[in-house]
Protein backbone atom coordinates (compact mmCIF):
# COMPACT_ATOMS: atom_id res chain seq x y z
CA UNK A 1 0.00 0.00 0.00
CA UNK A 2 3.05 2.22 0.39
CA UNK A 3 3.91 1.53 -3.23
CA UNK A 4 5.56 4.52 -4.89
CA UNK A 5 6.65 4.57 -8.51
CA UNK A 6 9.42 6.70 -10.08
CA UNK A 7 8.45 8.91 -13.01
CA UNK A 8 9.93 11.81 -15.00
CA UNK A 9 8.32 15.26 -14.92
CA UNK A 10 7.63 16.42 -18.48
CA UNK A 11 5.90 19.72 -17.65
CA UNK A 12 4.63 21.68 -14.66
CA UNK A 13 1.45 23.77 -14.40
CA UNK A 14 -0.15 25.98 -11.75
CA UNK A 15 1.22 28.61 -9.37
CA UNK A 16 -0.75 27.73 -6.24
CA UNK A 17 1.68 25.61 -4.16
CA UNK A 18 -1.12 23.24 -3.06
CA UNK A 19 -2.42 22.44 -6.50
CA UNK A 20 0.77 22.66 -8.58
CA UNK A 21 0.71 19.63 -10.87
CA UNK A 22 3.22 17.92 -13.09
CA UNK A 23 2.71 15.77 -16.17
CA UNK A 24 4.71 12.71 -15.21
CA UNK A 25 5.90 9.91 -17.50
CA UNK A 26 5.95 6.41 -15.99
CA UNK A 27 7.67 4.40 -18.72
CA UNK A 28 5.25 5.68 -21.36
CA UNK A 29 2.16 6.08 -19.19
CA UNK A 30 1.39 9.75 -18.50
CA UNK A 31 -0.41 11.04 -15.39
CA UNK A 32 -1.14 14.36 -13.72
CA UNK A 33 0.62 14.35 -10.36
CA UNK A 34 0.24 16.77 -7.45
CA UNK A 35 3.57 18.43 -6.59
CA UNK A 36 2.51 20.14 -3.31
CA UNK A 37 5.00 18.16 -1.22
CA UNK A 38 7.91 18.64 -3.63
CA UNK A 39 7.99 22.38 -4.39
CA UNK A 40 11.61 21.96 -5.53
CA UNK A 41 10.62 19.48 -8.28
CA UNK A 42 11.09 20.75 -11.82
CA UNK A 43 10.88 19.59 -15.42
CA UNK A 44 13.33 16.74 -16.05
CA UNK A 45 13.40 15.61 -12.42
CA UNK A 46 12.40 12.10 -11.44
CA UNK A 47 9.90 11.96 -8.59
CA UNK A 48 8.56 9.09 -6.48
CA UNK A 49 4.78 9.09 -6.74
CA UNK A 50 2.33 7.67 -4.21
CA UNK A 51 -1.50 7.90 -4.53
CA UNK A 52 -1.27 10.83 -6.93
CA UNK A 53 1.35 12.85 -5.02
CA UNK A 54 5.08 13.24 -5.55
CA UNK A 55 6.65 12.46 -2.16
CA UNK A 56 10.36 12.78 -3.03
CA UNK A 57 12.66 13.98 -5.79
CA UNK A 58 15.09 11.19 -6.66
CA UNK A 59 18.72 12.13 -6.08
CA UNK A 60 20.55 10.80 -9.13
CA UNK A 61 23.94 10.96 -7.40
CA UNK A 62 22.73 8.87 -4.49
CA UNK A 63 20.97 6.50 -6.92
CA UNK A 64 24.36 5.45 -8.29
CA UNK A 65 25.69 4.65 -4.80
CA UNK A 66 24.32 1.07 -4.77
CA UNK A 67 26.37 0.33 -7.88
CA UNK A 68 29.50 1.94 -6.40
CA UNK A 69 29.06 -0.37 -3.43
CA UNK A 70 28.82 -3.29 -5.86
CA UNK A 71 32.05 -2.22 -7.60
CA UNK A 72 33.78 -2.13 -4.24
CA UNK A 73 32.52 -5.64 -3.57
CA UNK A 74 33.92 -6.65 -6.98
CA UNK A 75 37.35 -5.18 -6.14
CA UNK A 76 37.25 -7.10 -2.89
CA UNK A 77 36.54 -10.31 -4.79
CA UNK A 78 39.55 -9.76 -7.03
CA UNK A 79 41.94 -8.64 -4.29
CA UNK A 80 44.54 -11.24 -3.29
CA UNK A 81 43.77 -12.78 0.09
Amino acid sequence: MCLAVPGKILSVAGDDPLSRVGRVDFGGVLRQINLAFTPEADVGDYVLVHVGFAISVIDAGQAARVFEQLRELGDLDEAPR
Partner: protein
Amino acid sequence: MKFRDEYRDSSAARRFADAIARTVTRPWTLMEVCGGQTHAIVRYGIDELLPSGLTLVHGPGCPVCVTPAEYVDKAIEIALRPDVILCSFGDMLRVPGSQGDLLAAKSQGAQVRIVYSPLDALDVARRHPDREVVFFAVGFETTAPANAMACYRARQEALRNFSMLACHVLVPPAMRTLLDAPSRRIDGFLAAGHVCTIMGYREYEPISAEYRVPIVVTGFEPLDILEGVLLCVKQLEAGRAGVENQYSRAVRPEGNRHAQNLIAEVFRIVPRRWRGIGDIAGSGLALAESYNDYDAERRFGCVRTQSERISECISGLVLRGERKPPDCPAFGTRCTPEHPLGVTMVSTEGACAAYHRFRGATVCKGAAR
Protein backbone atom coordinates in the same frame (compact mmCIF):
# COMPACT_ATOMS: atom_id res chain seq x y z
CA MET B 1 11.73 2.22 -16.28
CA LYS B 2 14.65 4.33 -14.97
CA PHE B 3 15.40 4.09 -11.23
CA ARG B 4 13.64 0.74 -11.12
CA ASP B 5 14.83 -1.79 -13.71
CA GLU B 6 18.54 -1.37 -12.92
CA TYR B 7 17.82 -2.40 -9.32
CA ARG B 8 16.46 -5.77 -10.53
CA ASP B 9 19.68 -7.03 -12.16
CA SER B 10 20.13 -10.67 -11.23
CA SER B 11 23.95 -10.88 -11.49
CA ALA B 12 24.28 -7.82 -9.25
CA ALA B 13 21.86 -9.47 -6.83
CA ARG B 14 24.05 -12.55 -6.78
CA ARG B 15 27.12 -10.44 -5.92
CA PHE B 16 25.28 -8.89 -2.97
CA ALA B 17 24.16 -12.35 -1.86
CA ASP B 18 27.78 -13.58 -2.05
CA ALA B 19 28.93 -10.63 0.05
CA ILE B 20 26.22 -11.39 2.62
CA ALA B 21 27.31 -15.04 2.75
CA ARG B 22 30.94 -13.96 3.32
CA THR B 23 29.87 -11.60 6.12
CA VAL B 24 27.60 -13.86 8.15
CA THR B 25 29.15 -16.13 10.80
CA ARG B 26 26.15 -16.64 13.10
CA PRO B 27 22.37 -17.02 12.77
CA TRP B 28 20.47 -13.73 12.59
CA THR B 29 16.81 -12.81 12.18
CA LEU B 30 15.88 -9.61 10.37
CA MET B 31 12.39 -8.17 10.06
CA GLU B 32 11.02 -5.94 7.32
CA VAL B 33 8.02 -3.80 8.23
CA CYS B 34 6.63 -3.10 4.80
CA GLY B 35 4.25 -5.14 2.69
CA GLY B 36 5.96 -3.92 -0.48
CA GLN B 37 9.27 -5.34 0.71
CA THR B 38 7.60 -8.60 1.82
CA HIS B 39 6.11 -8.88 -1.65
CA ALA B 40 9.48 -8.27 -3.35
CA ILE B 41 11.30 -10.74 -1.06
CA VAL B 42 8.86 -13.54 -1.87
CA ARG B 43 8.41 -12.60 -5.54
CA TYR B 44 12.13 -12.52 -6.34
CA GLY B 45 13.06 -15.32 -3.94
CA ILE B 46 15.47 -13.02 -2.08
CA ASP B 47 15.18 -15.13 1.09
CA GLU B 48 16.33 -18.15 -0.93
CA LEU B 49 19.54 -16.34 -1.95
CA LEU B 50 20.58 -15.89 1.68
CA PRO B 51 22.80 -18.27 3.66
CA SER B 52 20.98 -20.70 5.95
CA GLY B 53 20.73 -19.27 9.43
CA LEU B 54 19.96 -15.77 8.12
CA THR B 55 16.18 -15.47 8.38
CA LEU B 56 13.90 -12.77 7.07
CA VAL B 57 10.62 -12.49 8.99
CA HIS B 58 7.74 -10.35 7.84
CA GLY B 59 6.33 -7.79 10.24
CA PRO B 60 3.09 -5.82 10.39
CA GLY B 61 4.00 -3.95 7.20
CA CYS B 62 0.63 -3.85 5.55
CA PRO B 63 -1.71 -1.08 6.79
CA VAL B 64 -4.68 -2.85 5.24
CA CYS B 65 -3.87 -5.98 7.27
CA VAL B 66 -3.57 -4.19 10.61
CA THR B 67 -6.73 -2.09 10.27
CA PRO B 68 -8.96 -3.43 13.07
CA ALA B 69 -12.29 -5.08 12.29
CA GLU B 70 -14.13 -2.35 14.20
CA TYR B 71 -13.10 0.26 11.59
CA VAL B 72 -14.25 -1.96 8.74
CA ASP B 73 -17.54 -2.28 10.65
CA LYS B 74 -17.76 1.50 10.93
CA ALA B 75 -17.05 1.90 7.22
CA ILE B 76 -19.79 -0.62 6.39
CA GLU B 77 -22.25 1.06 8.77
CA ILE B 78 -21.62 4.42 7.08
CA ALA B 79 -21.65 2.99 3.55
CA LEU B 80 -25.07 1.39 4.09
CA ARG B 81 -26.67 4.79 4.76
CA PRO B 82 -28.75 5.75 1.71
CA ASP B 83 -27.32 9.29 1.52
CA VAL B 84 -23.65 8.18 1.51
CA ILE B 85 -21.02 7.44 -1.13
CA LEU B 86 -18.06 5.74 0.56
CA CYS B 87 -14.72 6.08 -1.25
CA SER B 88 -11.88 3.70 -0.44
CA PHE B 89 -8.60 2.35 -1.75
CA GLY B 90 -9.40 -0.92 -3.50
CA ASP B 91 -7.38 -3.09 -1.08
CA MET B 92 -9.87 -2.39 1.74
CA LEU B 93 -12.94 -3.84 0.04
CA ARG B 94 -12.37 -7.47 0.96
CA VAL B 95 -10.93 -6.91 4.42
CA PRO B 96 -13.26 -8.66 6.85
CA GLY B 97 -15.04 -6.77 9.59
CA SER B 98 -16.78 -8.64 12.37
CA GLN B 99 -19.76 -9.51 10.12
CA GLY B 100 -18.75 -8.95 6.51
CA ASP B 101 -16.72 -6.74 4.20
CA LEU B 102 -17.28 -3.63 2.10
CA LEU B 103 -17.65 -5.70 -1.06
CA ALA B 104 -20.61 -7.51 0.50
CA ALA B 105 -22.07 -4.14 1.57
CA LYS B 106 -21.69 -2.96 -2.02
CA SER B 107 -23.59 -6.00 -3.28
CA GLN B 108 -26.34 -5.11 -0.79
CA GLY B 109 -26.69 -1.74 -2.51
CA ALA B 110 -24.20 0.42 -0.63
CA GLN B 111 -22.49 3.05 -2.78
CA VAL B 112 -18.83 2.07 -2.44
CA ARG B 113 -16.34 3.53 -4.90
CA ILE B 114 -12.70 2.60 -5.38
CA VAL B 115 -10.38 5.59 -5.74
CA TYR B 116 -6.70 5.78 -6.68
CA SER B 117 -6.05 9.01 -4.79
CA PRO B 118 -7.86 10.75 -1.90
CA LEU B 119 -8.17 13.73 -4.26
CA ASP B 120 -10.49 11.56 -6.39
CA ALA B 121 -12.82 11.35 -3.36
CA LEU B 122 -12.87 15.16 -3.25
CA ASP B 123 -13.91 15.19 -6.91
CA VAL B 124 -16.76 12.80 -6.12
CA ALA B 125 -17.90 15.20 -3.36
CA ARG B 126 -17.80 18.17 -5.75
CA ARG B 127 -19.80 16.27 -8.36
CA HIS B 128 -22.42 15.01 -5.87
CA PRO B 129 -23.30 17.98 -3.62
CA ASP B 130 -26.54 16.19 -2.63
CA ARG B 131 -24.67 13.19 -1.20
CA GLU B 132 -22.43 12.68 1.80
CA VAL B 133 -19.03 11.56 0.47
CA VAL B 134 -16.85 9.73 2.99
CA PHE B 135 -13.24 8.76 2.39
CA PHE B 136 -11.98 5.70 4.31
CA ALA B 137 -8.45 6.87 5.14
CA VAL B 138 -6.06 4.06 6.02
CA GLY B 139 -2.32 3.82 5.63
CA PHE B 140 1.10 4.37 7.14
CA GLU B 141 2.99 7.66 7.27
CA THR B 142 3.53 7.35 3.49
CA THR B 143 -0.16 7.90 2.74
CA ALA B 144 -0.95 10.32 5.58
CA PRO B 145 0.11 13.52 3.76
CA ALA B 146 -2.06 12.75 0.73
CA ASN B 147 -5.06 11.97 2.94
CA ALA B 148 -4.36 15.08 5.02
CA MET B 149 -4.35 17.14 1.84
CA ALA B 150 -7.84 15.91 0.93
CA CYS B 151 -9.21 17.12 4.26
CA TYR B 152 -7.24 20.37 4.15
CA ARG B 153 -8.58 21.19 0.70
CA ALA B 154 -12.14 20.23 1.69
CA ARG B 155 -12.00 22.74 4.55
CA GLN B 156 -10.40 25.36 2.32
CA GLU B 157 -13.18 24.94 -0.24
CA ALA B 158 -15.85 24.64 2.50
CA LEU B 159 -16.87 21.35 0.93
CA ARG B 160 -19.47 20.44 3.56
CA ASN B 161 -20.52 17.07 2.12
CA PHE B 162 -17.02 15.57 2.47
CA SER B 163 -15.77 13.76 5.55
CA MET B 164 -13.09 11.23 6.48
CA LEU B 165 -13.09 7.97 8.43
CA ALA B 166 -9.47 8.12 9.57
CA CYS B 167 -7.69 4.97 10.76
CA HIS B 168 -4.03 5.75 10.15
CA VAL B 169 -1.17 3.88 11.81
CA LEU B 170 2.41 4.84 12.65
CA VAL B 171 5.29 2.41 12.29
CA PRO B 172 7.86 3.23 15.04
CA PRO B 173 5.53 2.54 18.02
CA ALA B 174 4.71 -0.88 16.52
CA MET B 175 8.43 -1.66 16.20
CA ARG B 176 8.84 -0.89 19.92
CA THR B 177 5.92 -3.20 20.75
CA LEU B 178 7.51 -6.06 18.79
CA LEU B 179 10.87 -5.45 20.48
CA ASP B 180 9.21 -5.47 23.91
CA ALA B 181 7.61 -8.90 23.31
CA PRO B 182 9.08 -11.65 25.51
CA SER B 183 9.14 -13.94 22.46
CA ARG B 184 11.23 -11.41 20.54
CA ARG B 185 13.63 -12.90 18.03
CA ILE B 186 14.36 -9.84 15.93
CA ASP B 187 18.05 -8.95 15.68
CA GLY B 188 17.67 -6.13 13.17
CA PHE B 189 15.11 -4.20 11.12
CA LEU B 190 14.84 -3.17 7.52
CA ALA B 191 12.85 0.05 7.95
CA ALA B 192 10.22 0.89 5.33
CA GLY B 193 11.74 3.23 2.76
CA HIS B 194 8.65 5.17 1.75
CA VAL B 195 7.53 5.74 5.34
CA CYS B 196 10.98 7.30 5.86
CA THR B 197 10.66 9.34 2.66
CA ILE B 198 7.98 11.26 4.59
CA MET B 199 9.23 11.05 8.19
CA GLY B 200 13.01 10.77 7.78
CA TYR B 201 14.77 8.44 10.20
CA ARG B 202 15.63 10.48 13.30
CA GLU B 203 12.83 8.78 15.27
CA TYR B 204 14.51 5.39 14.73
CA GLU B 205 17.73 6.47 16.42
CA PRO B 206 16.42 6.18 20.02
CA ILE B 207 14.84 2.79 19.18
CA SER B 208 18.11 1.47 17.76
CA ALA B 209 20.08 2.75 20.77
CA GLU B 210 17.63 1.60 23.44
CA TYR B 211 17.11 -1.94 22.13
CA ARG B 212 20.59 -2.33 20.59
CA VAL B 213 19.18 -3.23 17.16
CA PRO B 214 20.52 -2.11 13.79
CA ILE B 215 17.84 -0.37 11.70
CA VAL B 216 18.55 0.08 7.99
CA VAL B 217 16.21 2.29 5.96
CA THR B 218 15.70 0.16 2.85
CA GLY B 219 14.16 0.51 -0.61
CA PHE B 220 11.89 -1.89 -2.45
CA GLU B 221 13.78 -3.38 -5.36
CA PRO B 222 15.78 -6.61 -5.05
CA LEU B 223 19.18 -4.83 -4.96
CA ASP B 224 17.88 -2.39 -2.35
CA ILE B 225 16.71 -5.19 -0.09
CA LEU B 226 19.91 -7.20 -0.51
CA GLU B 227 22.06 -4.15 0.25
CA GLY B 228 19.84 -3.39 3.27
CA VAL B 229 20.40 -6.96 4.51
CA LEU B 230 24.18 -6.63 3.93
CA LEU B 231 24.39 -3.35 5.88
CA CYS B 232 22.33 -4.86 8.70
CA VAL B 233 24.40 -8.05 9.07
CA LYS B 234 27.66 -6.06 8.84
CA GLN B 235 26.49 -4.10 11.89
CA LEU B 236 25.40 -7.26 13.72
CA GLU B 237 28.65 -9.08 13.05
CA ALA B 238 30.62 -6.05 14.25
CA GLY B 239 28.51 -5.76 17.39
CA ARG B 240 27.20 -2.36 16.33
CA ALA B 241 23.62 -1.04 16.44
CA GLY B 242 22.81 2.15 14.58
CA VAL B 243 20.56 3.62 11.93
CA GLU B 244 21.77 3.57 8.32
CA ASN B 245 20.14 4.74 5.12
CA GLN B 246 20.32 2.35 2.17
CA TYR B 247 17.56 4.23 0.30
CA SER B 248 19.38 7.54 0.08
CA ARG B 249 18.17 8.26 -3.45
CA ALA B 250 14.71 8.93 -1.97
CA VAL B 251 15.13 9.39 1.80
CA ARG B 252 16.70 12.41 3.52
CA PRO B 253 17.52 12.23 7.24
CA GLU B 254 14.87 14.82 8.10
CA GLY B 255 12.26 13.44 5.67
CA ASN B 256 9.81 15.62 3.77
CA ARG B 257 9.05 18.71 5.88
CA HIS B 258 6.20 19.92 3.67
CA ALA B 259 4.42 16.61 4.10
CA GLN B 260 5.12 16.50 7.85
CA ASN B 261 3.71 20.01 8.32
CA LEU B 262 0.44 19.05 6.68
CA ILE B 263 0.18 15.86 8.76
CA ALA B 264 0.66 17.97 11.92
CA GLU B 265 -1.99 20.45 10.74
CA VAL B 266 -4.71 17.89 9.97
CA PHE B 267 -4.05 14.92 12.26
CA ARG B 268 -3.33 14.24 15.93
CA ILE B 269 -1.61 11.22 17.46
CA VAL B 270 -3.94 8.76 19.22
CA PRO B 271 -3.74 5.21 20.62
CA ARG B 272 -4.67 2.63 17.98
CA ARG B 273 -5.61 -1.04 18.00
CA TRP B 274 -3.67 -3.08 15.45
CA ARG B 275 -5.32 -6.22 14.15
CA GLY B 276 -3.31 -9.22 15.29
CA ILE B 277 -1.19 -7.19 17.73
CA GLY B 278 -3.50 -5.24 20.03
CA ASP B 279 -3.58 -1.72 21.42
CA ILE B 280 -0.44 0.36 20.89
CA ALA B 281 -0.10 3.76 22.55
CA GLY B 282 0.59 6.69 20.24
CA SER B 283 0.45 4.52 17.12
CA GLY B 284 -2.43 6.08 15.24
CA LEU B 285 -3.48 9.29 13.53
CA ALA B 286 -7.00 10.68 13.89
CA LEU B 287 -8.29 14.02 12.66
CA ALA B 288 -7.21 17.02 14.75
CA GLU B 289 -9.91 18.79 16.76
CA SER B 290 -9.89 21.70 14.33
CA TYR B 291 -11.09 19.19 11.71
CA ASN B 292 -13.92 17.74 13.83
CA ASP B 293 -16.45 18.92 11.23
CA TYR B 294 -14.81 16.61 8.71
CA ASP B 295 -14.66 13.59 11.01
CA ALA B 296 -17.02 10.91 9.69
CA GLU B 297 -17.15 9.13 13.07
CA ARG B 298 -18.60 12.30 14.64
CA ARG B 299 -20.82 13.13 11.70
CA PHE B 300 -22.46 9.72 11.61
CA GLY B 301 -22.13 8.82 15.29
CA CYS B 302 -20.58 5.39 14.77
CA VAL B 303 -20.79 3.40 17.95
CA ARG B 304 -20.80 -0.24 16.96
CA THR B 305 -17.76 -2.19 18.03
CA GLN B 306 -17.65 -5.95 18.12
CA SER B 307 -14.96 -8.43 18.85
CA GLU B 308 -13.19 -10.19 16.01
CA ARG B 309 -14.35 -13.57 14.84
CA ILE B 310 -12.49 -16.56 16.14
CA SER B 311 -11.03 -18.86 13.51
CA GLU B 312 -8.00 -21.08 13.04
CA CYS B 313 -6.29 -18.20 11.22
CA ILE B 314 -2.80 -17.40 12.58
CA SER B 315 -2.48 -14.00 10.89
CA GLY B 316 -1.76 -12.34 14.25
CA LEU B 317 1.36 -14.48 14.65
CA VAL B 318 2.30 -13.83 11.02
CA LEU B 319 1.94 -10.05 11.52
CA ARG B 320 4.24 -10.24 14.57
CA GLY B 321 6.83 -12.23 12.63
CA GLU B 322 6.43 -15.24 14.94
CA ARG B 323 5.16 -17.57 12.20
CA LYS B 324 5.47 -17.74 8.44
CA PRO B 325 2.45 -18.33 6.19
CA PRO B 326 3.27 -21.98 5.32
CA ASP B 327 3.33 -22.76 9.07
CA CYS B 328 -0.46 -22.34 9.12
CA PRO B 329 -2.41 -25.60 8.77
CA ALA B 330 -5.08 -23.80 6.76
CA PHE B 331 -2.64 -22.18 4.29
CA GLY B 332 -3.51 -23.01 0.70
CA THR B 333 -6.23 -25.46 1.70
CA ARG B 334 -8.98 -23.92 3.81
CA CYS B 335 -7.48 -20.43 3.31
CA THR B 336 -6.81 -19.10 -0.20
CA PRO B 337 -7.02 -15.63 -1.82
CA GLU B 338 -10.48 -16.61 -3.14
CA HIS B 339 -11.66 -17.78 0.29
CA PRO B 340 -9.44 -16.04 2.83
CA LEU B 341 -9.71 -16.68 6.56
CA GLY B 342 -7.65 -13.66 7.53
CA VAL B 343 -6.35 -10.30 6.40
CA THR B 344 -2.85 -11.44 5.50
CA MET B 345 -4.41 -13.59 2.76
CA VAL B 346 -6.91 -10.89 1.69
CA SER B 347 -4.58 -8.00 1.03
CA THR B 348 -2.32 -8.36 -2.01
CA GLU B 349 0.51 -7.09 0.19
CA GLY B 350 -0.22 -9.51 3.01
CA ALA B 351 2.50 -12.09 3.64
CA CYS B 352 0.12 -15.05 3.13
CA ALA B 353 -1.10 -13.71 -0.22
CA ALA B 354 2.50 -13.15 -1.36
CA TYR B 355 3.53 -16.73 -0.47
CA HIS B 356 0.38 -18.13 -2.07
CA ARG B 357 0.91 -16.18 -5.27
CA PHE B 358 4.63 -16.70 -5.74
CA ARG B 359 5.36 -19.99 -3.97
CA GLY B 360 2.09 -21.79 -4.59
CA ALA B 361 -0.35 -23.45 -2.25
CA THR B 362 1.77 -26.58 -2.07
CA VAL B 363 4.84 -24.81 -0.66
CA CYS B 364 6.62 -27.39 1.44
CA LYS B 365 5.84 -26.84 5.12
CA GLY B 366 8.94 -25.71 6.94
CA ALA B 367 10.81 -25.07 3.70
CA ALA B 368 10.32 -21.35 4.15
CA ARG B 369 12.91 -20.62 6.75
